[in-house]
């Protein structure tokens, strides 16, 4: 397949690939390295992309790249602290107090997601942020659909606990 077609196929999904890698690695520098390596691999394996499903396909390569790097390195970064929350998105339309509340919520959600074990974190990111179907997630993570479902359920339970959402819902009643 021609290289022009590779750029046309893969580059539109670069943001998604980086976002996924960023949530896997939890830092910018590692995410950049992973995605760059993944793109080189993707170029090499481009002819294996037959079913025209470039996005899950690229996620799979990003994930494999990250795994092989992480297992090479003995110092797993799982325990590392997340870096600063300086560049969170915010809504200019809100007044300062509301914006502060929103930033606070975003920071809490981000911290809670980063605390999840990576198996749970990635299914949450792929489902909620990237909007993949169960079937697509199963293909990326290489587990049966039933496992995707149980991981999502457990991830949500943990997140709800971390965010104290249960208590908040009770007070809303």
């Amino acid at each position: 397949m021609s290289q022009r077609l590779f750029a046309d196929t893969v580059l539109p999904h670069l943001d998604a690939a980086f976002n996924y890698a960023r949530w896997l690695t939890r830092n910018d520098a590692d995410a950049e390295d992973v995605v760059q390596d993944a793109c080189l691999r993707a170029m090499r394996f481009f002819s294996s992309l037959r079913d025209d499903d470039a996005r899950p396909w690229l996620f799979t390569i990003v994930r494999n790249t990250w795994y092989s790097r992480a297992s090479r390195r003995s110092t797993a970064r799982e325990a590392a602290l997340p870096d600063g929350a300086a560049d969170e998105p915010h809504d200019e339309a809100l007044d300062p107090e509301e914006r502060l509340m929103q930033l606070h919520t975003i920071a809490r959600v981000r911290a809670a997601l980063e605390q999840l074990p990576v198996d749970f974190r990635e299914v949450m990111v792929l489902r909620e942020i990237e909007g993949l179907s169960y079937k697509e997630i199963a293909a990326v993570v290489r587990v049966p659909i039933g496992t995707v479902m149980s991981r999502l359920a457990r991830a949500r339970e943990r997140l709800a606990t971390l965010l104290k959402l249960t208590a908040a819902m009770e007070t809303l009643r």
Partner: protein
Amino acid sequence: MTCEQAERDLDAYVDRELDAELAAAVRDHLSGCAACHRRVAQRDALGRMVRGAPYYPAPDRLRQRVLDRTARSRSWRRVLTWAAAAMVVVSVGGGLTLLRSSQASRGDIADLVVDGHVRSLMANHLFDVESTDQHTVKPWFLGRLDFAPPVVDLAQRGFPLVGGRLDYLGGEPVAALVYQRQKHTINLFVCPERDSRSPAPVVRTVRGFHVHHWTRGGMSFWAVSDLNDIELTQFVDALRAP
């Protein structure tokens, strides 16, 4: 359905991954069970929070590095692939000619639809008119096109209209309506249906983007997005609903 059965399916229900029959059974149970209803509300609230988490777009320098590597690799392979490339050029040219005579298969157009979608995102040219108001977007097309595209806001259904622009598919002017679903952009291309035989709806995946095509009231519609196909189908259903 008991609470235990319902609980087992609640995640799939919230994610709209249940088949219609099971989803109806869960819905039925929810209407009579406050506890399970609350569990669903909690999952919905959690989903909204997580979708509000930071999205990390690729840094420009990474994009540039990947492009550079692609270009370098291309120059190495140029000698080997020029013949194949020539064949691609020939077939692309043939495709465009076919489209102009309005006999191209919808497969070729789906490719152009994805090109248009990607172009609008990469060139940062999503809108000519940026508005969530269908009564602003619709008249904007007046005089710019020789047809009036139907414009509906689907904010109530979770797909807010965010704007529109003039675009081209295979040299033909089309209306492009832009909708948003969380962080995903949906482009809806609308033009008069040139083939009166009103073909059956088409769903395809091209380069990782889902493409839906249908016709209605003499108009031809193409919806394209990297949104998962379940939610894109909901979007299409909402548009096609009477």
